[in-house]
């Protein structure tokens, strides 16, 4: 029975072989990992260089200026099919002047967080972004300010956030045929970011856009009905830890990774973040993107093929159409003609649908028919 079940999913095995042939040597990934992960001493030296720069400016009777790489400009981003969106080496910068009322606040906030990071790294302790915010709410004003500045500093120091000893409160969920140990030998839950020794016999991984869909799959025992698999969700736009986890699973297991998102521009964009990365975090693309992610569903062409009832289809709004056009302009789409075709179907039909709309066909359609058939017959693009 088990053998018969596994035989039904030969398409996934074929895909896996194809991916293994296409991917680079695994050791090069580890080498790259070491390159982008500076040591504690490096971090301290880089922060000291910034302070010395400030002192030098003052000694020359000039107002200190901090230069932050501009993470929100497409002009600073290039596309590499093996990596995704990454920041150019010659990127533009935003100057924070200490003598300008419009930027002095941010200047002070950056310095404050730098001093916090310096002490954390020096003492080998950790703090969350929430801790940093609550230690000085008046200076920062909001959590979002701290989050953004931590990412700016990570980009400025050319170091991943985990090297700065600043943690985020986790958001993503993971389930399935997976267990791993922390470095200290403790078996922990799936929310740790320092996983080592991942052990899994999963044949594939499914990234689920929404928590609601994730819970639905859990309720229907999806992971036990099919070949060994892992499902993971970032609950919408994924945080760094969720993206790191997906990347870690790819690096370790090298199994096909599929995305299950709503058939709407927002879902497609979320899928692209996992696959190609985001503009804001392009400086860390190497450790966050998985260019091999495949689009499993819900495809716009599925809506027509499955004759999903029209009363569960939603017309695209003006913002949806704008986002769709913007996605079609993205540099990575030229590499994905099948994705382009699907998005053009959406543009033509002018409708979108959530994964939950499949329940209009039958309540268990998603788990018992749609997904198994997709996986069995290679229904991904």
């Amino acid at each position, binding site marked *: 029975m088990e053998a018969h079940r596994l035989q039904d999913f030969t398409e996934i095995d074929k895909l896996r072989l194809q991916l293994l042939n296409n991917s680079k040597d695994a050791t090069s990934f580890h080498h790259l990992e070491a390159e982008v992960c500076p040591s504690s001493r490096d971090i*301290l*030296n880089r*922060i*000291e260089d910034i*302070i*010395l720069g*400030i*002192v*030098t*400016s*003052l*000694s020359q*009777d*000039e*107002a*200190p200026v901090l230069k932050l790489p501009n993470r929100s400009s497409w002009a600073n981003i290039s596309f590499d099919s093996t990596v995704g969106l990454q920041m150019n080496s010659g990127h533009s910068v935003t100057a924070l002047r*200490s*003598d*300008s*009322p419009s930027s*002095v*606040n941010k*200047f*002070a*906030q950056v*310095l*404050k967080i*730098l*001093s916090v990071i*310096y*002490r954390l790294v*020096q003492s080998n302790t950790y703090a969350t972004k929430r801790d940093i915010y609550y230690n000085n709410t008046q*200076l920062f004003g909001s959590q979002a300010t701290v989050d953004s500045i931590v990412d700016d500093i990570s980009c400025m120091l050319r170091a991943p956030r985990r090297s700065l000893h600043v943690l985020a409160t986790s958001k993503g969920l993971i389930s399935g045929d997976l267990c791993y140990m922390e470095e200290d030998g403790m078996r922990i839950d799936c929310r740790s970011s320092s996983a080592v020794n991942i052990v899994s016999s999963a044949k594939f991984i499914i990234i689920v856009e929404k928590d609601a869909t994730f819970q639905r799959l859990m309720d229907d025992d999806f992971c036990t009905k099919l070949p060994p698999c892992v499902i993971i969700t970032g609950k919408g736009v994924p945080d760094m830890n969720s993206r790191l986890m997906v990347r870690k699973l790819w690096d370790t297991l090298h199994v096909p990774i599929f995305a299950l998102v709503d058939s709407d521009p927002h879902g497609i964009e979320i899928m692209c973040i996992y696959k190609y990365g985001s503009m804001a975090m392009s400086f860390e693309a190497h450790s966050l993107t998985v260019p091999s992610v495949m689009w499993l569903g819900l495809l716009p062409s599925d809506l027509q093929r499955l004759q999903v009832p029209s009363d569960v289809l939603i017309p695209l709004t003006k913002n949806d159409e704008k986002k769709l056009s913007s996605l079609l302009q993205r540099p990575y789409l030229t590499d994905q003609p099948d994705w382009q075709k699907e998005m053009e179907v959406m543009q033509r039909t002018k409708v979108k649908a959530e994964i939950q709309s499949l329940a209009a066909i039958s309540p268990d359609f998603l788990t018992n028919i749609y997904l198994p058939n997709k996986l069995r017959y290679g229904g991904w693009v």
Partner: protein
Amino acid sequence: MKDMRHLFPEWSAHMEAFLRSFSLVNAEINIHLTVKVDQHTVQYAFGAKVKKKLKLFSPVPLKLDVTCNTQPAIYGKERCWCLGGHPVCGSRLHVSIPPHAMDQGLFGDLSIQFVTLLSPCVLQYPNLATHISNIQLMVFNPSRVPVLKVPRFFQTLPAFLDFEDLGVDTLHCSSKDVQQLCGTSTYTSEPPSCSGPQQETSAVWQRVLVFLFLQLTDPFTSQLTDVMATEVLIERHLEDILNNNRHAMTVALQSELRNTLKAHNCRKKIKEKLNSAAEVILSSSISIVSCSSNLDFRRDCLNRMKVRDTQELSAAFGESLRRVTSWKCVPRHSCYSAKVRGMFAYRHVSGLVLICCHFHFSTDERTFRV
């Protein structure tokens, strides 16, 4: 220049004030004054280095002397400084003529045109803190001659102005603080207590000049003799005119001062923002230097600031940061810029002492001798 003041009677100060005020609003006229007392002869000259033309309601444009001789204490490198001012044409207030003034023959449409000037100009230094040292009100008749006798109205005016609303709550004025000299009422104040030496070096004292130009439109007055007679009437009844329009005058002056001092109040807010951020920048930077175990880094920081330890570094860092942020210069084409350098004592250039029995006026068109 010899100080001859002790030789001459008290009216000399009034004469000087009169000529100075006259020269301020008639900048196209150069005034040469020769004083001869016994064997002593002294010559003075009133003329504008920096002039600004303003178009008022009158057909003849106003030419103001906006020269500013005040220089602040400047530390260190050569800096730009504006040697002029930027007068602002304010509102025009129509005032009613009291009945008994009309009985005496004063008719027509009487108004007061406000022009304000904040001096010295610090527009090129948007982060520089300013304090208001005094507010001067100067009244001119329609011929732009300073009114000789200042109405008592201006003595009591401070009681009706809301200085807190103007953001100059350090300006505590009572009638005894009001100096009146030849058409000018000056409201002065005590300097605020300084919280530290940096307050003295990075703040500039400014004064507010408010020119009140009386204007009369009467289609039946065209002969020169009639004009002169009308101006005598205006001066004679000025106290009553102002009292008759007390509320409107107070509101108008409050509004003019508020507009003029808007920039000053913005600077206060900017200064607070910069100071608050500077504290964080200082504490964060020094914290990193203090707890660093990198001797080279610490030594480099101390050497660059030319100090011996982190305590001195903290003081030098803070002082430097305040100085460079305060003296941020944004050059403006409209300013009358000149380069100034070095450490100067903060000074006002006071007016010349004028004692005259002989006047000599010259303009481009004609010369007057009195």
